[in-house]
């Protein structure tokens, strides 16, 4: 992997993320916006980065970390009693984009991303 040029690595990251989004959306178009991602601009410790997602009218929100070995982080599903928002703590291997994709009750999808700078990566050992 180290032998790959940086551009190829970025493209590989991108392909993984887009595949995960397409699987979540079942091939439906995904618009920009409609979902909020809150995360610190700089995270000193990539082992535990607090994030929050929220999307008015969402049934589910998918969270991806574009630069992790595996981009999947979590998918939240919201019932009728829930406010469509959740917070958790995640691992980030390095500086990267955290992406949220919301599935709305009308079958539409929206996405947003936030870049988190990570000082110490969270996939070591």
């Amino acid at each position, binding site marked *: 992997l180290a032998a790959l040029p940086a551009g190829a690595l970025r493209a590989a990251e991108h392909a993984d993320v887009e595949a995960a989004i397409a699987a979540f959306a079942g091939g439906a178009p995904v618009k920009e916006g409609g979902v909020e991602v809150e995360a610190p601009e700089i995270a000193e410790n990539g*082992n*535990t*980065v607090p994030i*929050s997602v929220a999307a008015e009218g969402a049934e589910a929100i998918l969270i991806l*970390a574009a630069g*992790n*070995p*595996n981009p*999947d*982080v*979590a*998918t*939240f*599903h*919201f*019932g*009728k*009693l*829930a*406010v469509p*928002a*959740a*917070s*958790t*703590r*995640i*691992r*980030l291997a390095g500086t990267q984009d955290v992406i949220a994709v919301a599935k709305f009750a009308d079958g539409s999808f929206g996405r947003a991303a936030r870049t988190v700078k990570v000082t110490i990566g*969270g*996939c*070591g*050992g």
Partner: protein
Amino acid sequence: MAKIKPRVKAPKKAAVGEIIEIKTLISHPMESGQRKDSKTGERIPRKIINKFVATFEGEEVVSADLHPAVSANPYIRFEMKVPGPGELRFAWTDDDGSVYETSSKIAIA
């Protein structure tokens, strides 16, 4: 291994229609399957909480599919609208099939 203990912070009383905050935490290493043993160099097998479900009187409020990128001692915070008195039940499913459960009752103020 450290004892796995679920914890929940939810109000004991609420008004009908009130939006309440629920914080959950379970002590669990969330072994990602990416780490290697520093002595043997062998990969430590993955063992995580892969599913969280919160129900109120049997109705699903929030559920989550979790992956190894969720931090150790997974923390989940969410909000719900209280329809009336009842019991919130929480369940976390481990990769080994174990299910850890706890509950919290809500009375109407």
